[in-house]
């Protein structure tokens, strides 16, 4: 590091050289503070300098040369830094060291410092805001509009006593309030009127303490006293405090009482909005409050002296919504961002205070209030009042910020498909369509299935297996199905059993399901087998036979309970089952132990795909499944036509489902493209 000796300071005491930043002489130890003066600034003690800060700010504010019409006034906290900078910037006689420091600060972003970065960010935000606003022009406009509307309101309020005799029993005070806020748009603007009326255009920061104090006093003291803390918080507004119209003051008294009575329950944060409370960086908060304050100033500086009921300093009893809004903006501005409608709607808190019988009406008013800003979408900013324009701008940004907060941490995938609720009516319609289709096709008449219908490979293999059985070969028929599928399975099994019986094969029947005891009757009848054919119940299904399959030479408890316990004499086990799991159990637990035993199955069509690997591996000799493999379609009692109609309808529904999904996707893509 090199030092330029020309920049060295000489000690006033010993006249020796010292480094530029030295505060004391390294040689004699005398104080060198006096050498450090900002060029063009008078030397003042530190404490004094702090105290005179507002004066400096005032100076800057009052200096017309420093204010441009389109520029927003800087915030009080940031003014000193700006002011110093500007004063130095204007000066061409900068000390070299300062020039170097500033050069470095401009070159390195980090060197700017937090305060400076915050200032820059706020300046940027303010400039952006300023470019959108047209304060200079519309302030006068606001005045005119408000004066006009308040004159109308006052006239209407005076007319109310005669209208109070309506049968809806709405209290007079409420009617007056309603008359005073006939248009929802005005309510929206109320929020920006809540701030104090400042003598200057400068924004003020509301401190929590000041607001709390104001709120406390508002509940206990009279109107003038209540405004004092607020005014003390903004000292310059005292002179501009406007008197309240006596009529309106009287009209607002019941509201004060009501709101006072509900003070216990009141809180300015709606419960369902807690989820939106997301802490944001302080810089962001400052930025937002700054913007909000700008709008507050814009809305309050021309506050007419009509004593609008919404104004806190004029209507202490009504302070809750407005103060709540201010507090919300100050403390949790995100909430105001996320739910602009809620925070901008002073009637929401008022709803709690109004009598129950008029709640619906007030709700309707709130709804209208919420709806109207959406309905009105003027493209020309000049076509709407400037205060509304500002609010919409705020609202837009608030909604943008809200959406950003909501999306934080989420996967930014495409828009989710909007689920259309499919009600019971649709399901009923479909069910009736199927029922009607089936009934009509059944009523037309019998329609047997063609006799030469193509059977599946496993069914053909099963047929071949049955053909190979000789007379007196033993076949074990295991009935393992429920009543629900009995119709389908009996239609498949009965002809085969009949055929086996005709071939002279010895059939033994077991049922693994209790229901098989009564279902077997029907099956035997259909297969034209003797009624006295024994059907034994096999508790535990194949578990009961594993012992015998593993070691046929043993005898255990209950061996004599079952005739068909030893499976070795059988050539084929025909499983009539509606469960592929049970069939798999037989193939897993019994088949590996008895290699000479063949297994075949008669099952429902729903189980067929699961059994196909076992047929492919040779574990199953064959299986018959579904309507095609049996002769159910050939039965006169079964309508094959109805079956086809049902399949056809299902085919149509599946295709419709695919098409509707495709169409939905296409529409969504189109919408996304349009967006």
């Amino acid at each position, binding site marked *: 590091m090199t030092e330029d000796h020309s920049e060295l300071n000489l000690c006033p005491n010993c006249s020796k050289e010292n480094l530029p930043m030295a505060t004391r002489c390294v040689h004699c130890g005398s104080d060198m503070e006096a050498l450090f003066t900002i060029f063009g600034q008078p030397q003042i003690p530190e404490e004094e300098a702090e105290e005179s800060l507002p004066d400096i700010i005032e100076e800057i504010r009052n200096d017309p040369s420093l204010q441009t019409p389109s520029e927003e006034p800087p915030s009080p906290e940031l003014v000193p830094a700006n002011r110093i900078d500007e004063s130095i910037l204007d000066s061409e006689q900068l000390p070299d060291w300062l020039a170097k420091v500033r050069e470095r600060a401009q070159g390195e972003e980090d060197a700017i410092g937090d305060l400076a970065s915050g200032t820059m960010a706020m300046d940027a935000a303010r400039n952006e805001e300023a470019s959108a606003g047209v304060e200079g022009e519309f302030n006068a406009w606001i005045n005119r509009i408000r004066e006009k509307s308040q004159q109308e309101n006052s006239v209407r309020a005076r007319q109310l006593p005669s209208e109070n005799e309506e049968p809806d029993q709405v209290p007079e005070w409420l009617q007056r309030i309603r008359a005073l806020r006939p248009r929802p748009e005005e309510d929206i603007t109320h929020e920006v009127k809540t701030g104090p009326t400042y003598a200057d255009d400068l924004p003020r920061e509301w401190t929590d303490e000041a607001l709390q104090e104001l709120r406390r006093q508002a509940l206990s003291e009279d109107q003038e006293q209540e405004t004092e803390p607020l005014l003390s918080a903004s000292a310059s507004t005292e002179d501009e405090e406007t008197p309240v119209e006596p009529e309106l003051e009287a009209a607002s008294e019941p509201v004060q009482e009501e709101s006072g009575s509900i003070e216990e329950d009141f809180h300015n944060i709606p419960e369902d909005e807690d989820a939106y409370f997301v802490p944001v960086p302080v810089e962001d908060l400052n930025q937002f409050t700054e913007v909000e304050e700008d709008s507050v100033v814009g809305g309050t500086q021309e506050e007419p002296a009509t004593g609008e009921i919404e104004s806190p300093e004029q209507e202490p009893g009504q302070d809750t919504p407005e103060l709540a809004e201010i507090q919300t903006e100050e403390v949790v501005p995100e909430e105001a961002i996320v739910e602009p409608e809620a925070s901008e709607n002073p009637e929401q808190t008022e709803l709690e205070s109004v009598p129950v019988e008029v709640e619906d009406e007030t709700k309707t008013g709130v709804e209208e209030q919420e709806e109207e800003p959406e309905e009105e979408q003027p493209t020309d900013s000049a076509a709407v009042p400037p205060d509304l324009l500002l609010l919409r701008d705020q609202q837009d940004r608030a909604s943008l910020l809200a959406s950003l907060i909501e999306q934080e941490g989420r996967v930014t995938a495409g828009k989710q498909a909007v689920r259309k609720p499919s009600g019971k009516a649709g399901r009923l319609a479909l069910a009736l369509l199927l029922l009607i289709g089936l009934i009509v096709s059944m009523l037309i008449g019998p329609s047997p299935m063609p006799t030469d219908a193509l059977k599946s490979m496993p069914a053909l293999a099963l047929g071949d297996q049955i053909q190979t059985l000789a007379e007196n070969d033993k076949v074990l028929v295991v009935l393992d199905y429920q009543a629900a599928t009995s119709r389908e399975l009996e239609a498949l099994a009965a002809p085969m059993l009949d055929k086996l019986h005709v071939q002279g094969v010895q059939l033994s029947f077991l049922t693994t399901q*209790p229901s098989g005891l009564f279902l077997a009757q029907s099956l035997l009848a259909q297969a034209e087998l003797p009624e006295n054919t024994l059907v034994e119940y096999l508790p535990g299904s194949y578990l009961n036979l594993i012992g015998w399959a593993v070691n046929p030479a043993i005898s255990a408890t209950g061996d004599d309970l079952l005739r068909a316990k030893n499976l070795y004499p059988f050539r084929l086990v025909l499983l009539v089952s509606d469960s592929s799991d049970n069939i798999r159990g037989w193939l897993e637990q019994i088949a*590996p132990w008895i290699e000479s035993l063949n297994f075949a199955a008669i099952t429902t069509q729903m189980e067929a795909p699961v059994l196909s690997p076992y047929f492919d591996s040779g574990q199953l000799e064959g299986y018959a499944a*579904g309507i095609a493999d049996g002769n*159910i379609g050939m039965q006169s009692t*079964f309508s094959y036509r109805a079956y086809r109609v049902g399949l056809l309808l299902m085919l149509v529904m599946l295709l419709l489902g695919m098409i509707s999904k495709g169409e939905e996707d296409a529409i969504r893509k189109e919408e996304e493209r349009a967006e």
Partner: protein
Amino acid sequence: MSPSELFTLIVGVALTVMVLSYILGDRLFFGIATHILIGVSAGFLALVIIQKVILPYLIMPLADPASPDFLLALVPLALSILLVLMLFRRGTQAGAIPLAFLGGALAALAIIGVTRGTLAPQILSMLGRFEPSQLMHEAQPQWAAIIEALMVLLGVISVLFVFHHRGQSKAGNVIRPVFLEGIGSIGQIFIGITFGALFVGIFSSALIALISSLSEIIKFVTLWF
């Protein structure tokens, strides 16, 4: 038609209509029908278990203390008593022992059964398609058989990969190479084909049941007109 058959038909049709009233949004008749089903099934099941399992397998051996089966029957008796204790609040824990006994025995059976009955035969069957005798015929390659064997192999491996894929996905987000994702997609296609066939199968079975129910109703109606 005998009076008994007629009465059976009337009962059957009435119960069918009660169940089908569900599609019209009715809950009362549907509820009655299903509760009848549960009650009758439970009663019948209880009877069958008592008469076909408990009496011959448990009570009969206990009836003869001199029999060698008597002592053996004491074990299931003890386990059964522990199970019955589950009906009472204090005995809930006791029921865990017989249930654990059941679980352990079934787990052991599953190990042997799945290995010998499913895994080994299915894998061998898949590999058996690659035997030279299957792929060659008179020294000529059987392209259809070769393609089929490859397709089966690829299909099974890709489906198994879907299992693995899902297991890993549950553990956390895993980024895989493109070709592994491709294999997973192929597996999904094969699973989808199987599910499609199952879907049609279930619908077909349900449709047959529905037609049977409707034909009973039509049969009943035609009796009177």
